[in-house]
């Protein structure tokens, strides 16, 4: 794979991608309390097998230790965090301020998201902000970085040097605009994409084909998102209850077809097979492995997926 371009930030993730390596990221959810050891422990489990670690931002609208503080803990451990930031809870003042806060610790990656509706969380009666949307947050980060200017136009002293990413869901409705939507995110400034969990590989490959037809794979690094199933129950839940998730019947059947005590193993097997297949898809530049509350399995997935050892960014 040819490197697409020179790097624009000191992000380790960007460096690895630009050098043409398949990147590996993973994510950790912060705890529902102030014990930082929990997040450090999760990070410790995966740190040698991934290039960067996403920290989720009050995912499913449940109040947790904040993403920025968690990222700082990781940074202080010498790791490479990806700050996830949703626009649900903060207005443009707070978002810009947090971007600067992250940059002050040299946090170099950010993932711009809308965020789940607060209805799903522990504060369903709370106000939501949505002063900006996720694309406008991308534009904001890029303006702050590339022009060194706040949204208000004033100059930023020591602008943030952040590699800007976004999420993409190749499976959500309406399907007809999935690629147009990606094009829009690229136009807004997305430099890397982490996709929704992929279970329907055929449909993902079809989406990638359309992505390539528009040349978008040359403009943005696409990391394929994968979440291993722990059980057949989880597969059914993801299929039926999680909006925008496409789990084919045969995958659910395959999970249900093995005895309960072997299902976790089967889930990991599916995940590893997916990596092996998707590695061959032109335009897939890496993997985002979201092993939900199952971080200890990430090393095994990475190793068996043939993605280990990770490149040393210092040597690139």
């Amino acid at each position, binding site marked *: 794979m040819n490197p697409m371009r020179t790097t624009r930030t000191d992000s380790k993730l960007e460096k690895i991608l630009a050098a043409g390596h398949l990147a590996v990221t993973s994510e950790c959810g912060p705890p529902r309390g102030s014990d930082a050891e929990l997040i450090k422990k999760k990070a410790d489990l995966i740190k040698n097998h991934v290039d960067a670690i996403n920290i989720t931002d009050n995912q499913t609208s449940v109040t947790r230790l904040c993403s920025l503080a968690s990222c700082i803990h990781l940074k202080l451990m010498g790791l490479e965090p990806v700050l996830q930031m949703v626009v649900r809870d903060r207005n443009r003042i707070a978002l810009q301020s947090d971007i600067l806060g992250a940059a002050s610790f040299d946090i170099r990656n950010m993932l711009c998201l809308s965020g*789940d*509706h607060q209805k799903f969380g522990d504060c369903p009666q709370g106000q939501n902000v949505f002063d*900006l949307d996720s694309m*406008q947050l991308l*534009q904001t980060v890029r303006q702050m970085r590339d022009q060194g200017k706040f949204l208000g136009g004033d100059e930023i002293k020591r602008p943030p040097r952040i590699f800007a990413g976004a999420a993409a869901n190749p499976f959500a*409705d*309406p399907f007809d605009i999935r690629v147009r939507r990606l094009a*829009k995110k690229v136009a807004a400034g997305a430099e890397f994409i982490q996709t929704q969990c992929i279970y329907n590989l055929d449909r993902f490959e079809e989406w990638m084909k359309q992505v390539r037809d528009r040349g978008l794979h040359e403009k943005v690094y696409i990391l394929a998102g994968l979440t291993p199933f722990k059980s057949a129950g989880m597969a059914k839940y993801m299929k039926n209850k999680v909006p925008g998730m496409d789990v084919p019947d045969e995958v659910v059947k395959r999970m249900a077809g093995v005895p309960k005590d072997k299902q976790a193993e089967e889930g990991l097997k599916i995940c590893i097979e997916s990596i092996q297949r998707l590695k061959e898809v032109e335009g897939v530049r890496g993997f985002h492995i979201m092993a939900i509350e199952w971080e200890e399995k990430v090393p095994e997935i990475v190793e068996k997926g043939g993605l280990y050892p990770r490149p040393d960014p210092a040597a690139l």
Partner: protein
Amino acid sequence: MIVADRKPIEEIIEYIKDANKVLIVGCNECVTVCEAGGKKEVGVLASALRMYFMNQGKDIKIDEVTLERQCDHEYLEEIRNIIDQYQAVVSLACGVGVQFMSEKYFQTPVFPGVNTCFMGVTEERGVWSERCQGCGQCILATTGGICPVSRCAKRLFNGPCGGSSKGMCEIGGEVPCAWQIIIDRLTALGRLDDYEKLAPIKDWSKERAGGPRKVVREDVRQ
């Protein structure tokens, strides 16, 4: 229209229980159309309150009147000569009417008889839904005539989010995804390419965020 919904009668009883004479004031505009505060609802509420207080052995006189509008001086003036007789007024107008009456009749307690909900349409009799939040800077020209501010639960200007599923919003409750409708509409108009234009960051100063708003038109001002 401004859509309102009836308040629970217990709440209204709590407001007026210490009064001897109460006036219930309906409004002949929006709240009549959405069947929350017109002449008919004034009559129903007044009867229910009379019955309640009679059962309680309490002697409260409850009168009824319905004005053409409660958001204009001239109609609110129609009750100037009678309002002093009442210890309490229950306005079944939207929050606008309740406030305008309170401002005009400063010594009289005026209580809301409805919950004012939104600006919306009658989908069918008994079903009203939201269409506008009065954000002060209409963008409907760019979104195929469908408003993401009032109809997207995240008011996304560059939607849809990942929660759009089979045309419905992730919040459930049979709420259609505004962005699905926008895309369907742009497709029907042959304008789907417009979807790819990035919507600029919104100026919310024209909305509630900018503080109470006012329109002043010197050309029509007297």
